[in-house]
């Protein structure tokens, strides 16, 4: 299929680095796959919302709808040998890494077919075989962890890199600065991806950060600000960053993005921002609509064909949910499994 070139929505903004070109190469196939994958992610998250309301998902559940372009754009730029680690808003990153819907829904409902055997739940998805390291619930903790994975990659002389993802709220954490300093001292092949959705729970970025220029964090490391609602811009930036960090050590990518849902299921998401703000972004910047428009304007598919994809996706999600609901909970013996790789005589102490 023909390679085509598309301009990113807005220019990249660089810090201590020349920005990559706004012209991104893509193919009709890639655009269609972006459309399909993002639609699947969106549908999965909306289904999770319903399952939560039906009390089939419990505890904390953080949805990713609105931010899908980051997950798919990043995957388009890297391979499954590159590593990713993220926070609790992890469902779609897991899908991006090749995880299956059935594993996702099973995990969400605490079933044994879950990607963490039902033991982790919404916040703790993993897919080690595709270098996806979770799924972390403590704000900021995954940043040094990601830098450590990159240390492992460099130590092992693999030419791979790690994407360590965190929110605008997490960007204020001291451990970011500590890990960034060491990564820079040691030239680790790590990309710090700040998914700036402009709120950390109910706190707007400017109330939490004196300087919300997250791509400049720490000042001495190169950074790019990227339209995180534009999958092609994300792809371009991630490709650029991967090449950069393999040669020069860490780099920051700030993805300007947005979450449609509240922070988690207990947050209606409307007390600290206006409904106009949300609907404005849905109208102007929605990542799926952007790709739909590209596909239509380049006459790659018709509107109806895209609707069909969306229907398919819906069916897939429904089927996966049905299957997951049939899946049993973990066996009781799982309570004491996986505490250790090598148990060494720790007694199983139940209450």
């Amino acid at each position, binding site marked *: 299929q023909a390679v085509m070139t598309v301009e990113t929505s807005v220019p990249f903004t660089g810090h201590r680095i020349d920005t990559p070109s706004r012209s991104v190469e893509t193919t009709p196939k890639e655009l269609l796959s972006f459309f399909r994958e993002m639609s699947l992610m969106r549908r999965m998250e909306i289904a999770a919302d319903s399952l939560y309301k039906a009390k089939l998902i419990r505890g904390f559940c953080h949805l990713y709808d609105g931010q899908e372009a980051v997950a798919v754009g990043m995957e388009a730029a890297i391979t499954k040998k590159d590593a990713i680690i993220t926070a609790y808003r992890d469902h779609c990153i897991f899908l991006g890494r090749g995880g299956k819907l059935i594993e996702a829904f099973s995990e969400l409902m605490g079933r044994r077919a879950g990607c963490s055997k039902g033991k982790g*739940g919404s916040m703790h998805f993993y897919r080690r075989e595709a270098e996806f390291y979770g799924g972390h619930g403590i704000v900021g903790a995954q940043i040094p962890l990601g830098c450590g994975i990159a240390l492992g990659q460099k130590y092992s002389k693999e030419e791979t890199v790690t994407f360590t993802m965190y929110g605008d709220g997490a960007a204020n954490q001291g451990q970011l600065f500590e890990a960034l300093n060491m990564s820079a001292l040691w030239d680790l092949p790590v990309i710090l991806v700040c998914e700036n959705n402009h709120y950390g729970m109910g*706190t707007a970025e400017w109330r939490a950060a004196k300087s919300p220029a997250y791509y400049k964090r720490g000042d001495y490391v190169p950074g790019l600000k990227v339209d995180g609602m534009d999958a092609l811009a994300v792809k371009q930036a991630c490709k650029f960053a991967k090449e950069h960090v393999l040669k020069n050590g860490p780099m920051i990518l700030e993805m300007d993005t947005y979450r449609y849902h509240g922070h988690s299921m207990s947050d209606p998401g409307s007390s600290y921002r206006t409904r106009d703000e949300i609907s404005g972004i849905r109208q102007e910047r929605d990542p799926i609509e952007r790709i739909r428009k590209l596909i239509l304007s380049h006459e790659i598919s018709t509107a109806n064909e895209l609707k069909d994809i969306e229907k398919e996706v819906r069916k897939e999600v429904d089927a996966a949910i049905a299957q997951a609901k049939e899946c049993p909970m*973990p066996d009781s013996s799982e309570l004491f499994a996986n505490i250790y790789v090598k148990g060494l005589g720790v007694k*199983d102490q139940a209450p």
Partner: protein
Amino acid sequence: EKMTVRDALNSAIDEEMAADPKVFLMGEEVGEYQGAYKVSRGLLDKYGPERVRDTPITEAGFTGIGVGAAYYGLKPVVEFMTFNFSMQAIDQIINSAAKSNYMSGGQISVPIVFRGPNGAAAGVAAQHSHCYAAWYASCPGLKVLSPYSSEDARGMLKAAIRDPDPVIFLENEILYGESFPVSADVLDSNFCLPIGKAMIEREGKHVTITAFSKMVGYALKAAEILSKDGISAEIINLRSIRPLDRDTINASVRKTNRLVTVEEGFPQHGVGAEICAVVVEESFEYLDAPVERIAGADVPMPYAPNLERLAVPQVEDIVRAAKRACYRSVPMAAAA
């Protein structure tokens, strides 16, 4: 009259802020968002942003800032959204708050309260379910309280805020929404409970059951069931983990001769272990059966509901342990 634990906590903070301009609240989402669990609802409106201070998600930093403000003479109430996140700040709590009065020969007092939900909630898995009662209570310089009822919550939080020393105040998310009867006394703005005193929630003759926080409710339910089997259980609500009310615990065991300890946290080096040691030290000769320890399973908290249920004590576990304790009497030392 009835009151939820949430309202009890809210009113306690409110009253202490009204009474003492040095008291202020800080933490994530305590202000504009009205509290992640709405414990601070309405306080920002009432006291303004200087006294109800939203912080970034930087526990180490804001805890240090809170402790510094306490050095200076203010009385901060620092909310951790949950105590799991206090681990990012635990160096400031232990090394800067707990030890400063001693290291300075009494010059630097640290009148601060650290509060928030502690331990298991529902379906929040391993990183959000840790109980820190034993950790903090091991540390001289701290006082550690854990309320069960609305009366506890009001009386102990008000006492904690007035106290001149650093207090760790361990709440429970699941209890926030529970309602308890409260008397007019409890609603009085001068109402305070003494730190270091346990509360006998139910008198009994045959077995002593100690518990704190949510487990007090479970122990009371167990006592109900046990009473049907003719077993009269005395339920001690510890309220204060440090100082631990050794006197009340020992007096009860000297009466019942049997002890069951209950907690949701991990067993090893837990609250039950200490209570066992305290009773063995002071009332060994009164014990007619081995101490029964009921604790959370010795595993990181699993998410799946069936596993989660197995991982935390249930009423039946307490009943079973109490029966074990009661049907056994001490044999003569076998190998003496």
